[in-house]
């Protein structure tokens, strides 16, 4: 089994999972090289989403698969092309008597305008072969139409968009289907979207099983799905079919079919307990459904259809706060970055748990304190009415405000198209709140009733004007405690021994305590910017390691997109929101030896105080040490004691205090709220006016939520150190140098391991400091320290006594699973006994690059800064920095040009630095272009370049050059306030034209190294296992 994936953050790319693991770009060129080297029998393209499918199709079309005799399994090329090509798909549906949306295909803007006559407005635009509906949208007018169609044509690899008449307001459903080569077909799950057609299913709140379909309608849909999988010809594997249903007459329309495992398949697997990907793979290699056992029951076969005796609700998580100015209207292009899933015995229970699990500060279906936070301009009913017509992340809360404001369900339905049944469910929640408020006293039945509707203690406390702890005490006194039920695929019809559990307020609990020594691992909740699968990776490694050591491992998490929520990763899985209430109840039931909080990112850390107060044993580094690291004053004292330099800094609880601190420190300063992950609201401020502005716009400060003010070390090198400690021995895992200079969030910066430009003595200083911090804080487990080097001084930027985002990257590079070892030292083992006492320096270079969602947020300026905006990462490994960086860039989708034009426009500060870079590009044969000032500067120093007008000054300007295809690489550093508009249009043009660009000179220099590597030698591929074998013992 050979795996190709460039993502280091997943369990999948750990060396134990496959026989050979290629952490190489998932592109046709690289996969061809891997095929040439490995000579596999078959290629399975249906598990890796759209990326894998597109690569497989390219390899089929260019004859590589045929050349090497590689069979496509899971779905063949014909099936893939029919499913993906809108025209072929429409024809196939007509053949089997099913309807598709009335649409036509355009390959040019002119064709599109002709079709617009037919579709009218609103029109739906769907580009062919793009991921997550990328580049698509809903156009309500001609202006939007032009913009979205142009973008869609750009983004479609075959320059094709489908233009459809809108089915706005129709109900949307999905079915997950599996078929084996004997033509046995089963439906795994039905999913109903709460948001009607027009909102991408990934951005919609969805419910499983379907709630409002009669059997007649459901079976029509089931029959259609079976016909579709047969007609498209998915021979052995799974597919996902999306339908629209006209609520007025039940008309059924097929929206699309994905002949592969999709985001919805992952959700359906978690929702039913039926492992779609695993079983799909077995089907692809020739098993039939009745030959595969149902892994949950162990006694029945996989050839059945799961039945649910619970309701599952998935809620998308968005990150618009990270992209000011980006349009938060939900359309057919997916904009969410993660999701929570919740299980309850009723829709109401699951719905409230799902909202709570998002960790966005709402504990259920709760409106925000301020209208603005619910996406409303003011408190007026008119604003509310207007808002209901536009799908946004806040609309679900606006519905509650609307109900409270006396708007009736008929009107809400008319504006928002939520099915009346869902609105009735919401009304019941509202009525229950009112009744609970009005009660003279809380009785056990009343409490139980509220809990059965999914109300959190916190919500109930707010309704009664008490605090959460008091409400919990009342509930406990009344004897109202959750029970835990199993997800078993069969609604209890057969015995099951797989403790995949969720809470509810019914009578009977299943899966009792085993009496074994157990450890609870708290997961990281929904993916979000700053907290993605890296943390899930750590939790999973910990679970696996402790299981191997004989512990009973208990996972708590709410994210369906993860490995940690696979039912067989841990001995027990609690699919629950990561809030204090849910965790405390689980702890109470399981009585574990302790709880691991340091691997799931900020989510479990936020619970530490509450857990500690409740007397829950925290494994590893003490809660107090975690607090020291977060508490500026306490941390400063320790740094001073250890003699570690810190950038001059201060803490402010008011604007005035911040200004005073900044004056003392000297501008520029870096400002940020304390206790955040991913650099939320972090900003570099150059003067007092901007600082005032920051306080006005970005943060609300208070006594217990201070703002940190740090000197900003311009042009410093930054480095991240990951280390592990057992309380006695501290071992460095790896030192990573950031490619981007200080001021760019570490999560957004590319980084290289080992460092290539930091002096050895500084690296030693970092090692020494890291050990000192680990010992001073009494770290047992992982620690991450960030340093900056400026003028030969090593400053500590921050210390995080927990697992970091870079743990999977470091672990893959050094061939040691740091998270596994962390779990073992947390449960009492010593590093010396485990045999890890020495830092490992791998004899190769690993580069990590961040992946950004900028194409989805077109309105947003794609410049990097201290606030993290990346949503993923890729890795490149090679024997040189240049080649490793080149691979990472390619994997991240930033193809580097080998010839052509380089357009340089940098601020004055950067001019000296850009000179050697320009010279190298010139020497490699690139044509240089520069704006006047830069061109003159370069010319004076003997580097020729063509002068290009500034965007605001004349034509042809940089944007023209880019549109004309003369620019292959844009090097643009921010030119300051005055030139903001120019910069913005250049970067936007680069994204639209898919031109490589960098906004920092260090990245440009790295790109230059990479281009040198690519032009001087042919890239080779090598598996992770082979790389790791070269590590000296």
């Amino acid at each position, binding site marked *: 089994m050979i795996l190709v994936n460039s993502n280091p953050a997943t369990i999948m790319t750990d060396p134990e999972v496959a026989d050979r693991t290629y952490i190489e770009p998932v592109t046709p060129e690289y996969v061809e090289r891997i095929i040439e080297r490995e000579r596999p029998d078959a290629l399975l393209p249906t598990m890796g989403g759209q990326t894998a499918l597109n690569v497989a199709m390219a390899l089929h079309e260019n004859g590589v698969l045929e050349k090497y005799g590689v069979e496509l399994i899971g779905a063949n090329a014909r099936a893939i092309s029919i499913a993906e090509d809108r025209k072929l798909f429409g024809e196939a549906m007509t053949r089997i008597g099913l309807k598709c949306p009335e649409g036509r295909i355009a390959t040019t803007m002119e064709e599109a305008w002709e079709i617009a006559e037919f579709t009218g407005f609103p029109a739906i635009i769907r580009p062919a072969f793009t991921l997550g509906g990328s580049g698509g949208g809903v156009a309500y007018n001609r202006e939007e139409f032009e913009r979205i169609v142009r973008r869609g044509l750009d983004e479609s690899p075959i320059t094709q968009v489908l233009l459809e008449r809108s089915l706005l307001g129709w109900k949307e459903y999905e079915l997950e289907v599996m078929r084996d080569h004997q033509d046995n077909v089963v439906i795994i799950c039905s999913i109903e979207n709460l948001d009607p057609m027009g909102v991408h299913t990934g951005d919609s709140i969805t419910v499983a099983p379907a709630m409002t379909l009669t059997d007649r309608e459901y*079976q029509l849909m089931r029959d259609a799905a079976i016909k579709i999988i047969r007609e498209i010809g998915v021979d052995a594997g799974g597919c996902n079919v999306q339908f629209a249903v006209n609520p007025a007459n*039940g008309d059924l329309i097929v929206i699309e079919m994905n002949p592969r495992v999709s985001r919805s398949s992952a959700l359906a697997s978690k929702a039913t307990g039926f492992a779609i990907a695993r079983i799909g793979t077995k089907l692809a290699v020739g098993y039939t459904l*009745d030959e595969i056992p149902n892994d949950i029951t162990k006694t029945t076969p996989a050839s059945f*259809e799961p*039945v649910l*005796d619970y309701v599952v609700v998935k809620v998308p998580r968005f990150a618009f706060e990270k992209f000011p100015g980006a349009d938060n209207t939900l359309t057919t292009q997916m904009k969410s970055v993660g999701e929570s899933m919740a299980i309850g015995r009723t829709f109401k229970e699951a719905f409230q748990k799902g909202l709570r699990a998002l960790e966005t500060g709402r504990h259920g279906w709760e409106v925000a304190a301020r209208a603005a936070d619910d996406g409303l301009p003011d408190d007026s009913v008119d604003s509310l009415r207007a808002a209901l017509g536009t799908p946004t992340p806040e609309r679900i809360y606006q519905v509650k405000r609307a109900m409270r404001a006396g708007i009736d369900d008929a009107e809400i339905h008319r504006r928002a198209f939520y099915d009346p049944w869902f609105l009735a469910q919401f009304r019941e929640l509202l009525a229950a709140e009112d009744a609970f408020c009005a009660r003279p006293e809380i009785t056990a039945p009343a409490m139980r009733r509220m809990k*059965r509707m999914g109300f959190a203690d916190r919500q109930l406390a707010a309704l009664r004007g008490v605090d959460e702890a008091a409400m919990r005490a009342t509930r406990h006194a009344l004897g109202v405690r959750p029970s835990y039920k199993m997800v078993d695929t069969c609604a209890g019809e057969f015995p099951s021994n797989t403790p995949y559990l969720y809470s509810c307020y019914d009578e009977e609990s299943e899966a009792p305590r085993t009496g074994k020594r157990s450890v609870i691992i708290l997961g990281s909740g929904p993916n979000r910017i700053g907290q993605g699968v890296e943390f899930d990776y750590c939790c999973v490694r910990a679970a696996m390691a402790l299981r191997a050591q004989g512990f009973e491992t208990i996972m708590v998490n709410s994210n369906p997109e993860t490995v940690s929520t696979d039912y067989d990763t841990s001995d027990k899985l609690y699919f629950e929101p990561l809030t204090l209430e849910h965790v405390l109840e689980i702890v109470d039931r399981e009585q574990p030896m302790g709880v691991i909080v340091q691997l799931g990112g900020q989510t479990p850390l936020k619970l530490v105080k509450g857990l500690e107060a409740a007397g829950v044993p925290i494994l590893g580094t003490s809660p107090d040490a975690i607090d020291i690291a977060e508490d500026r004053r306490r941390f400063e004292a320790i740094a001073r004691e250890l003699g570690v330099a810190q950038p001059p800094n201060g803490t402010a609880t008011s604007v005035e205090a911040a200004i005073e601190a900044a004056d003392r420190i000297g501008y520029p300063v870096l400002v940020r709220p304390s206790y955040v992950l991913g650099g939320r609201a972090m900003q570099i401020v150059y003067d007092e006016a901007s600082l005032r502005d920051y306080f006005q716009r970005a943060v609300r400060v208070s006594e217990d939520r201070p703002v940190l003010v740090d000197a900003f070390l311009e042009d410093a090198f930054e480095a991240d150190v990951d280390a592990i400690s057992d309380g006695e021995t501290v071992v460095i895992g790896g030192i990573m140098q950031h490619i981007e200079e200080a001021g760019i969030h570490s999560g957004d910066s590319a980084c290289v391991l080992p460092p290539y430009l930091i002096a050895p003595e500084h690296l030693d200083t970092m090692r020494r400091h890291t050990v000192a911090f680990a010992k001073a804080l009494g770290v047992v487990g992982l620690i991450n320290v960030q340093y900056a080097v400026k003028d030969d001084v090593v400053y500590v930027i921050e210390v995080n006594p927990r697992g970091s985002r870079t743990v999977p990257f470091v672990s893959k590079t050094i061939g040691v699973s740091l998270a596994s070892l962390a779990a073992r030292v947390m449960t009492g083992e010593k590093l010396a006994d485990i045999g890890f006492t020495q830092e490992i320096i791998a004899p190769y270079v690993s580069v990590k690059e961040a992946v950004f969602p900028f194409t989805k947020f077109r309105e947003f300026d794609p410049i990097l800064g201290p606030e993290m905006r990346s949503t993923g990462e890729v890795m490149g490994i090679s024997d040189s920095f240049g080649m490793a960086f080149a691979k990472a860039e390619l994997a991240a989708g930033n193809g580097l040009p080998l010839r052509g034009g380089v357009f340089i426009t940098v601020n004055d500060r950067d001019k000296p630095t850009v000179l050697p870079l320009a010279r190298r590009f010139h020497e490699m044969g690139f044509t240089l272009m520069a704006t006047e000032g830069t061109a003159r500067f370069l010319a004076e120093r003997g580097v020729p370049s063509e002068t290009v007008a500034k965007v605001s000054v004349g034509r042809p300007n940089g944007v023209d050059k880019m549109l004309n295809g003369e620019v292959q690489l844009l090097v643009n550093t921010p030119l300051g306030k005055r030139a903001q508009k120019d910069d913005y249009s250049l970067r936007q043009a680069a994204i639209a034209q898919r031109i490589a660009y960098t906004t920092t000179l260090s990245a440009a220099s790295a790109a230059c190294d990479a281009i040198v590597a690519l032009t001087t030698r042919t890239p080779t591929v090598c598996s992770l296992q082979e790389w790791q074998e070269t590590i000296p013992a």
Partner: protein
Amino acid sequence: MLDGTPGFLLLEDGTLFHGQLAAPLKMPAVAEVVFTTGMTGYQETFTDPSFRGQIVVMTAPMIGNYGVNDEDPESARPQISGLIVTELSSAHSNWRATRSLGSWLAESEVPVLTDVDTRRLTRHLRSGGVLRGVIGAGAAPTDAARAELESCPSMEGLDLASVVSTRAPYSWGEATAKTHIVAYDFGIKRNILRLFEQRDCRITVVPSTTSALDALALKPDGIFLSNGPGDPDAIPGAPETIRGLAASGIPMFGICLGHQLLGLSFGGSTGKLPFGHRGGNHPVKELATGRVLITSQNHGFAVQGGPEGIPGAPDLEVTHVNLNDGTVEGLRHKLLPIFAVQYHPEAAPGPHDARPLFDDFMSEIGAAAH
């Protein structure tokens, strides 16, 4: 249900379940308690005569969401003795809905107990087998309820088919239709009639007690033995009648109870399953092809035997088996044009995978005519 009246379900083994009564209860309801795992089609289920004499537990937690309509019933009225759910939806939404499930059941005086831990109840029935139970009002069982439970007869030995069967013959479908089918009504579902009608058939539905001679006098092209409730072994005279019909050589097709009766008629025996098969997700293997069908099922009794055959019935071969527990799901006569399935190819509710069996029957009829 925000405010209901407390109610309970007491099982014959003494296990008690608390809940809320959706509507006031006139008198305690006693019956065999069974669960079904179907997630859609509650209206079809509740009107299926095969559920006569049973209190039905829905494992799907939200029931009533799409209301009830005039097209989906499988018989004229609700047939179940009682309903047990986690939540009965107080609101409904569907373009075909004419009223709420709650009001429709209340009109027929079917007791509904909500807010029950239906999963606990299902697991209890699964591990201990189906039990008789009583739905009563109040927080604790009254003596009256206990007495009712005592007097509830066991399903074994109970002839319910004769109770639900039509009293007089009636016709369904166009009089001019190509094929004439005589259907024995042991509790027939309307969708069976609809599917025959779609295949250009006119059906004469006859009472379960109709003699072979009387049935043959109707000159059928095919004979159908319907589904129905109760113990197949308790229907007086059925095997003799069926043997008489078989002797005519006219193609015969049986579903569910009809399947069991055919098994009995040719020497096989039937027995009670521990907790039955009820739902829409049961995998059945067609032995001739190896194909797996997802089927709709609703039965508490089964023909004894396995893939190798039916003991005592050498003339029958087994054509289908259940992949979950290996029980007999279909049989065929080795010489005569007779076949039957234990599951419900007419679905309603449930998947349509096995619908081609109706076409197979039409082919048998066509072949017999030549």
